[in-house]
C-alpha cells in the first residue's frame, strides 16, 4: 500500500505499492484548480482596453452576396470597427488554407456556402454592443439552390458550390482508394457467403463544453502578436499564422490555456481566430472573440458524415475472407478535414479491423455540400471511428447470416499473436496485439453465456433484450515523419527536461491537454524514469514561447509521441546523471546500478547517490567528470517509427421497451489494451468519457439539416448529448500488450472508447431487434427509429 500526496492530502492506492514514484494510480495534479473553479480558460482572460468581436453569419446555405451595408453598425456609439469580406480581400486575407490544402473563406466575398458562414465582423467596447451591432448590418443575398443531400452532389444538375476554384465545374473533392480491387473481387467471387449492408455514420459534432474562442493582442511597438486561443495544436497554429498572415514566426506567441474539451473540434484554424488577429492589428487593442453555443454547433468542425456500403465475404464455416466498402463522404462547403496530407480519408484504411483477411478494398468519393466544413478527428484518430463501426457492424451482419455467435465468429478470425507485427491488406503494420485474451476477459466479465440464457428467457416473455459485441483495433500516435505531415509539418514532438539543483524538475511538452491529464501523466512518465516524485515535476505546455515545437494533441497521439519523448528525454538526463554519479562515487559507470532514483555501487550497499544529490552536484561547486557540462537537462525531438495499435473488446447489454421503443443501456463491459498503463485512474476516466460519447452517437446525436440547408441542431436542446442518466455504471477491465517500438510500451487510449462503443451499442440494439427480422438500423437509435425498426422499416438518417 502506497500513499500519494496530492495538494496536502494523502490518498492510498493499492496498485502503486511497488512504485513509489512513477506509473500507477495517482490523483490528477491539475484537478485542485478545476474543482475549485480556478481553471483559467480563454474567456477568463481580461486585458486592459480589451475590445469584443462578434461575427455576422449567413442565414442561408447557398447565396450570392450582393452587398453588405455596414453604415448603421459603424454609427453605433460603442462600435470601433466593422470588417467585411471585401475589406479582407484588399489585404489578401479573405481566404485562408484549410488543413487539407483547400481554401476557406475567412469572410465571404462572393457567395455564402453554408448556413452560419462568416460574412462580417464587428468590434465593439463590450460583447453586448458587438452583438447588437450585428443586427445593424444589412446584407443583400441572392439565394441559390443549395446542395444538401450528399447523394445528389455529383449529379449534373447540381449547382457548383466551389465556383471560387478555377475551372471547378462540379462538387467533387477527391476519389481515394486503398487495397486491391481485383484481388478482392476474386475472393468475393469464390466466397460461399457474401453479405452487404448500407451503413450511415451520421454527421455529429464534438460539442466541447467550452466553445472556441481567442484573445488576440498585437503590440505595435515590439511587433509581437500574442494569441490566446482554444487550440489543440498551438505550435502548428503559430506556424500557419506566420505563413498566412505574413507575420514573422518569432513574433507570434500562441497560448493555449486551460481548454474545456477539444475532441478534435479545436484542431482547425477557424475564421474567428483570424478575425480576432486582424481586429487587433487594425485597432491596436486586445480583441476577444468567443463564439456562442449555436455558432460552435453550426459552423465549426463536424465529424463523420460517411455513407458506406459494406460488403464481407466468408466461408460457410465462418472464415472471413475479405471486406470491401464504397464510401460517399460529405465534406461540407470547404474541405477542412484534419488529417495527415497523404491520408485524405484519415486512417479509414484500418477498416479491415482486427481480422486476418485475404483481401480488402475501399473506394471513396468525397464531395462538397452546402454544409459547415470540417471533418475533424472527433475522438476518432482520423476516421477510425467510421472504419471500426463499418467492420464491426458488417461482421455482425455476417454472424447473423451464418447464425453464428458474434464472439465466436470474431475469435475464429482474429489476427493471431504470432502474426504481429501484422501487415494488413491495406498496408497498415499493426505493432502488437493479443486479441483472444482481451475478448475472453470481456466475455467473462460480462457473464456472456448467462446473458444469452437470460435473453432467451426474456424473449419467451415478450421482452426485448440485446447483447452487442465489438472488437476494435485503433491506429494512433501519428506519426512517422516519412509518411505523415499536416500542411508540410512533420508529426514529431519535442520535449525538454530540466532538473533544478534541489532535485525538482520541469518538463516542457509540445502537446496540449484539453482535459486528458497531461500535467499528471507526463510527470509520472518522467518520475518513472528518474525517480523524482511526480509532485516534484512541473509540466509546462500550451505556450509556444515556453515549449518545444510539436504538432499537438489529437488522434490519441500525446502518449504515443510526446509520452515517448518525455521518457527518452528523462533517459538522456539519467545517462548524464550516471556520469556525474560515477564521479561522485569514484567508480566507473560500469559499476553503477540504477534503482529508481538512485545510483548504487554494485556490491556496496552503503555507496549510493540519489538523483537529488546528483542534481545539486551538477549545479554545485567542484569538478565534474571530464567532458561533462554543468547542469542537468536535455531535450529531444521524437519521431515515432510507427503508430501504436491499441485494441479492446466491448460488450453492451440493452433493454428496449416494447411499447415505447426506448433503448436503455443496462450494462457495458469495456476491456481495453493500451499497452503499458501509466495512470490507470486517468485511463479509466478517459474510457468512461469515451463510452459516454459512444452512447450519445449511438442513441441521440446528429447534426441534421432541412432541405434548404438550415441546420436543425444549433443548440444543446436540439443536439442532444448524453447525461449520467443515460449511461450505466461502466464495467472496465484491461489486458496489457506493450507496444514494441514505444520506449515504455504505451499506446494511445484517449479515443479507444469513442471508437469501440458505438458498434457495440448498435449491435446490441440490432441483436435485440433480430426477432423483428432486422439486420441493421442506423444511428442515432432514437425511440422513433427503433420503433420503425420494430415494424421492419428503420429509416436511414439521410
Amino acid at each position, binding site marked *: 500500500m502506497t500513499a500519494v500526496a496530492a495538494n496536502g492530502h494523502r490518498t492510498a492506492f493499492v496498485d502503486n505499492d511497488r512504485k513509489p514514484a512513477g506509473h500507477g494510480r495517482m490523483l490528477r495534479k491539475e484537478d485542485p484548480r478545476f474543482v475549485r473553479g480556478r481553471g483559467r480558460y480563454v474567456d477568463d482572460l481580461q486585458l486592459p482596453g480589451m475590445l469584443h468581436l462578434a461575427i455576422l453569419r449567413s442565414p442561408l446555405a447557398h447565396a450570392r452576396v450582393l452587398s453588405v451595408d455596414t453604415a448603421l453598425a459603424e454609427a453605433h456609439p460603442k462600435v470601433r470597427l466593422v470588417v467585411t469580406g471585401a475589406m479582407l480581400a484588399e489585404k489578401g486575407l479573405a481566404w485562408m488554407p484549410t488543413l487539407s490544402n483547400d481554401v476557406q473563406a475567412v469572410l465571404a466575398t462572393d457567395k455564402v456556402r453554408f448556413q452560419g458562414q462568416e460574412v462580417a465582423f464587428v468590434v465593439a467596447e463590450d460583447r453586448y454592443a458587438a452583438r447588437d451591432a450585428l443586427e445593424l448590418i444589412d446584407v443583400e443575398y441572392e439565394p441559390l439552390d443549395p446542395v444538401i443531400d450528399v447523394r445528389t452532389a455529383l449529379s449534373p444538375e447540381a449547382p457548383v458550390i466551389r465556383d471560387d476554384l478555377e475551372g471547378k465545374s462540379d462538387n467533387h473533392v477527391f476519389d481515394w482508394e486503398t487495397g486491391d480491387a481485383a484481388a478482392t473481387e476474386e475472393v468475393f467471387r469464390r466466397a460461399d457467403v457474401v453479405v452487404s449492408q448500407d451503413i450511415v455514420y451520421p454527421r455529429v459534432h464534438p460539442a466541447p463544453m467550452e466553445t472556441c474562442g481567442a484573445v488576440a493582442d498585437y503590440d505595435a511597438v515590439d511587433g509581437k502578436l500574442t494569441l490566446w486561443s482554444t487550440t489543440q495544436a498551438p505550435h502548428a497554429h503559430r506556424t500557419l499564422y506566420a505563413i498566412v498572415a505574413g507575420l514573422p514566426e518569432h513574433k507570434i506567441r500562441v497560448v493555449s490555456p486551460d481548454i474545456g474539451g477539444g475532441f478534435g473540434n479545436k484542431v482547425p484554424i477557424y475564421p474567428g481566430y483570424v478575425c480576432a488577429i486582424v481586429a487587433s492589428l487594425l485597432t491596436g487593442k486586445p480583441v476577444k472573440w468567443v463564439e456562442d453555443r449555436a455558432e460552435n454547433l453550426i459552423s465549426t468542425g463536424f465529424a463523420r458524415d460517411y455513407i458506406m456500403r459494406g460488403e464481407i465475404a466468408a466461408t460457410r464455416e465462418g472464415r472471413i475472407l475479405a471486406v470491401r466498402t464504397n464510401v460517399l463522404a460529405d465534406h461540407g462547403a470547404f474541405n477542412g478535414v484534419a488529417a495527415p496530407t497523404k491520408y485524405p480519408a484519415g486512417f479509414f484504411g484500418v477498416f479491415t479491423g482486427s481480422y486476418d483477411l485475404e483481401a480488402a478494398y475501399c473506394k471513396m468519393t468525397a464531395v462538397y455540400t452546402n454544409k459547415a466544413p470540417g471533418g475533424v478527428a472527433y475522438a476518432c484518430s482520423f476516421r477510425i471511428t467510421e472504419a471500426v463501426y463499418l467492420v464491426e457492424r458488417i461482421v455482425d451482419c455476417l454472424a447473423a447470416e451464418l447464425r453464428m455467435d458474434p464472439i465466436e465468429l470474431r475469435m475464429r478470425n482474429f489476427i493471431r499473436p504470432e502474426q504481429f507485427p501484422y501487415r494488413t491488406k491495406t498496408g497498415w503494420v499493426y505493432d502488437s496485439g493479443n486479441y483472444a485474451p482481451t475478448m475472453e476477459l470481456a466475455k467473462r466479465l460480462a457473464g456472456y453465456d448467462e446473458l444469452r440464457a437470460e435473453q432467451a428467457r426474456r424473449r419467451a416473455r415478450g421482452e426485448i433484450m440485446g447483447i452487442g459485441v465489438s472488437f476494435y483495433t485503433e491506429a494512433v500516435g501519428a506519426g512517422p515523419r516519412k509518411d505523415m505531415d499536416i500542411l508540410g509539418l512533420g508529426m514529431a514532438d519535442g520535449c525538454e527536461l530540466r532538473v533544478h539543483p534541489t532535485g525538482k524538475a520541469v518538463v516542457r511538452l509540445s502537446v496540449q491537454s484539453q482535459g486528458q491529464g497531461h500535467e499528471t501523466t507526463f510527470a509520472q512518465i518522467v518520475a518513472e524514469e528518474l525517480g523524482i516524485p511526480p509532485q516534484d515535476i512541473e509540466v509546462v505546455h500550451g505556450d509556444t514561447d515556453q515549449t518545444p515545437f510539436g504538432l499537438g494533441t489529437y488522434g490519441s497521439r500525446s502518449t504515443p509521441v510526446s509520452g515517448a519523448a518525455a521518457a527518452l528525454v528523462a533517459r538522456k538526463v539519467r545517462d548524464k546523471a550516471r556520469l556525474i554519479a560515477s564521479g561522485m562515487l569514484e567508480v566507473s559507470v560500469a559499476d553503477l546500478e540504477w534503482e529508481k532514483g538512485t545510483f548504487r555501487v554494485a556490491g556496496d550497499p552503503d555507496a549510493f547517490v540519489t538523483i537529488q544529490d546528483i542534481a545539486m552536484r551538477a549545479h554545485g561547486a567542484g569538478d565534474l567528470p571530464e567532458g561533462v557540462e554543468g547542469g542537468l537537462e536535455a531535450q529531444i525531438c521524437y519521431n515515432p517509427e510507427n503508430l501504436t495499435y491499441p485494441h479492446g473488446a466491448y460488450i453492451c447489454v440493452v433493454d428496449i421497451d416494447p411499447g415505447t421503443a426506448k433503448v436503455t443501456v443496462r450494462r457495458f463491459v469495456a476491456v481495453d489494451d493500451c499497452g503499458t498503463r501509466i495512470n490507470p485512474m486517468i485511463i479509466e476516466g478517459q474510457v468512461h468519457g469515451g463510452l459516454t460519447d459512444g452512447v450519445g452517437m449511438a442513441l441521440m446525436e446528429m447534426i441534421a439539416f432541412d432541405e434548404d440547408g438550415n441546420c436543425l441542431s444549433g443548440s444543446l436542446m436540439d443536439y442532444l448529448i*448524453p447525461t449520467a442518466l443515460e449511461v450505466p455504471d461502466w464495467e472496465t477491465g484491461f489486458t496489457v500488450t506493450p507496444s514494441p517500438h514505444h520506449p515504455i510500451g504505451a499506446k494511445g487510449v484517449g479515443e479507444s472508447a469513442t471508437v469501440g462503443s458505438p458498434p457495440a451499442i448498435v449491435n446490441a440494439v440490432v441483436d435485440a431487434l433480430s426477432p423483428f427480422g432486422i439486420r441493421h438500423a442506423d444511428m442515432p437509435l432514437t425511440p422513433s427509429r427503433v420503433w420503425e425498426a420494430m415494424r421492419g422499416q428503420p429509416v436511414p438518417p439521410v
Partner: protein
Amino acid sequence: MQVPAPFEYQRVGTVDEAVALLDRLGDTARLVAGGHSLIPMMKLRLANFEYLIDINDLHDELGYIRVEPGLIRIGAMTRHRELLESDELAAAFPVFRDAERVIADPVVRNRGTLGGSLCQADPSEDLSAVCTTLDASCVIRGTDGERVVPMEDFHQGPYETAVGDAEILTEVRFPVRPRGSSAYEKVERRAGDWAVVSAGAALWLDESGLIADARVGLAAVGPNTAGIPGIAGALRGRPPAEELWARAGDIAAESCSPVTDRRGSAEYKRHLARELTMRVLRRAEARINGQEV
C-alpha cells in the same frame, strides 16, 4: 456567450404593482418568473421585449399549495421543486410528482414555476398536460379584478394564452374528487429533453367500482396540450379493464394531431399517444386500488 437585445428591467413586489406596470407598458412588456424558457428565447433573439417585469419577489404572495376540502389551490409562482416535494400534493394527485420527476433538470426545477409553465404555452409542456388532465382552472388578475378560465380555454394556440397584456395568472385550481388517482408518463430522447409525447391520466371510480370519470391530457401531439374528451364518454359507467384502456388509447391516437420532427415521426407519436394513454390509465387505476404509489 449568447446575449439578448437591450431591454429595461423592473422588479415588482406585489401582484397589483405588476398589473399596474403591465397596464402602462402593454405588449412591449413581459413578465419573467423562473426565466428558463423566456431568457433562452431572448438570448437567441427569438423573443425581444422592451421591458421585463421580474415577479420573483411575488413568490411569498403566489408560492403556495393549499389543500382545502374538494379543492387544491396552487399559486402561480410555486416552483417545480415545491410541486415535486409536496407530499400533500402527491397524495391527492400523484400525476404531479410523476411529471415533475421528468421535467428538465434540478437547476430548472429550482427556478421554474407553475404559472410560467402554463403561460409559456409550449405544446410540449408537461405541467400544461397535468393541468389539462386534472381539469384545472386558471385565476387571472387584471386591472378589473379576477376572472377564472377553464384549462381548455386557457391555451389558444402554440405560445398563446388567454392572459391579456395587462393581466397575470395568479393561481391554478384543481377540483378534488373521491376515489380517484392519476399518473403521468413521458417518452423523451434524453433526460431533461422536451417530450416526444407525454400523457397524463386521472381516473375516478364510483362507490360500486365503476368508472365515474376519466381524463387524459397529452403533450407534444398538437398545437396545445390536448385533453381527449372522447375518452371520458367511452369509459364512464364501465368497470376498469384492460380492453377499456386499449379503447382509450385508440381514441387518444385518433384524436391527436402530431407532426413529424426531429423528436420522431407523426406515426410514432400517434403510437405513443395510444401506448402512454393505456399505461397511465392502468397505473391510475392501480393506484386507486393501492397497488402502486
